[in-house]
């Protein structure tokens, strides 16, 4: 059992040593996860909104499927994306397996159902309040989706944070499609997994601490923006 205070000291010395290897890992982790959330949001928010307001056959089934897909096992998603992107796979001609691009795709697939399912709930709740008013102002159902996404923007920040949390924490998917190549596709979580299996537990723990602090910073920033925005706009 490694000493936690030793690991904390190691974490601090790692951060302040200015080790370029560490900063590359940190930067790649953030870049991959934030890109994945952005892509998932661009597609997922409109899909969530349409699912909230849509009245079509099979809507309820889709809602259940997206809710269930919030719990997709990362290794399974990683494997599926691996098969798609591998040389002999249908998307093999892109040649992006074992690159950060493949990692972004895998994480976007993981985050997408979270964005759809949670934004669907947010928009549906908002629609209960807005529907008569928007219809009365001549807004079509399709146009109302956009209106609600914008008016729900503060609640939707939390949805995106849930997605970011999922992406930043997972290791199974990016390990498979990225390959944990030193200096190229190694991220915080894959490095932690590697150091743990090598037995360098203090280093693994120290990296874990850096990752936690990073996630807290991202969340604090988003929360602050959300609070200020809400205070400016809402009663």
């Amino acid at each position: 059992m490694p000493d936690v205070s030793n690991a904390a000291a190691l974490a601090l010395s790692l951060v302040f040593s200015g080790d370029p290897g560490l900063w590359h890992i940190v930067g790649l982790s953030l870049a991959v996860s934030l890109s994945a959330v952005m892509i998932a949001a661009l597609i997922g928010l409109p899909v969530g909104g349409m699912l909230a307001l849509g009245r079509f056959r099979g809507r309820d089934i889709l809602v259940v499927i997206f809710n269930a897909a919030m719990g997709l096992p990362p290794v399974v998603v990683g494997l599926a994306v691996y098969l798609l992107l591998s040389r002999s796979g249908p998307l093999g001609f892109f040649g992006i397996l074992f690159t950060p691009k493949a990692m972004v795709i895998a994480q976007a697939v993981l985050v997408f159902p979270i964005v759809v399912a949670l934004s669907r709930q947010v928009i549906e709740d908002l629609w209960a309040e807005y529907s008569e008013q928007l219809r009365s102002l001549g807004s079509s159902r399709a146009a109302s989706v956009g209106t609600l996404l914008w008016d729900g923007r503060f609640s939707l920040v939390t949805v995106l944070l849930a997605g970011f949390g999922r992406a930043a924490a997972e290791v199974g998917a990016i390990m498979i499609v990225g390959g944990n190549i030193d200096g190229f596709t190694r991220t915080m979580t894959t490095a932690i997994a590697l150091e743990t299996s090598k037995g360098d537990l203090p280093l693994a723990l120290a990296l874990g601490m850096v990752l936690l602090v990073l996630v807290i910073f991202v969340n604090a920033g988003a929360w602050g923006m959300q609070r200020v925005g809400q205070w400016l706009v809402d009663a």
Partner: protein
Amino acid sequence: MHAPSMSLPIKLDRVGYSAGGVEILKDISLTLASTSPTIVLGPNGAGKSVLLRLCHGLLTPTSGSISTGNMNVSIEHTALLFQRPVMLRRTTIANVIYALSHSEPQERKARAFQLLSRVGLAQLAYRPARKLSGGEQQRVALARAWARDPKILFLDEPTANLDPAATRAVEDIVQEIAATGVKIVMATHDLGQARRLAGDVVFLHQGCAIEHTPAERFFNSPCSIEAAKFLRGELLA
């Protein structure tokens, strides 16, 4: 300016409305032909709000039919002011611009400013609408309804939650809108307000239109016992 004849008469032919097995409106036949404001009076639960929503097109009658100016009811030609309007989470002017989807994009801002000036809120144009007082929000809602360029404006107890000064401001705007040739149909249970605004009165009780008479006659010698009781301030069972 609209020719009022385009939207009139508002004609309800044996209109009924039920929801969840409860009959809310029964067999209502009315012809609102006068250009002066029509006030829909009645105790809570009489069906006033549902009647307005049916005429506006938010609800569809379960039986009978409604027409305005011999055309089918359409949300495009009418506007409804809710008792509690929903302010979008954006600036006051953005709320008005939202309702101007039918006008040219480059004209919307100027038109929104013009409407806000007419309801006396131009100086609050860039304040978040949800930060305004209840009375101010109702005036934004009036500007928004006006922005729809309605031929008929329905109002569902718009001053029920407002103090006398805010009520006065809303009534002044309603009269200004009426003066541009827009037909006003307003539900209220405020008798003073009904006296101030009414050209004619429709009295609803328990989902039935019990009487429809010119305002003066309604307030001096109503035809029905229920309306007489209501005017005396008695509680209707």
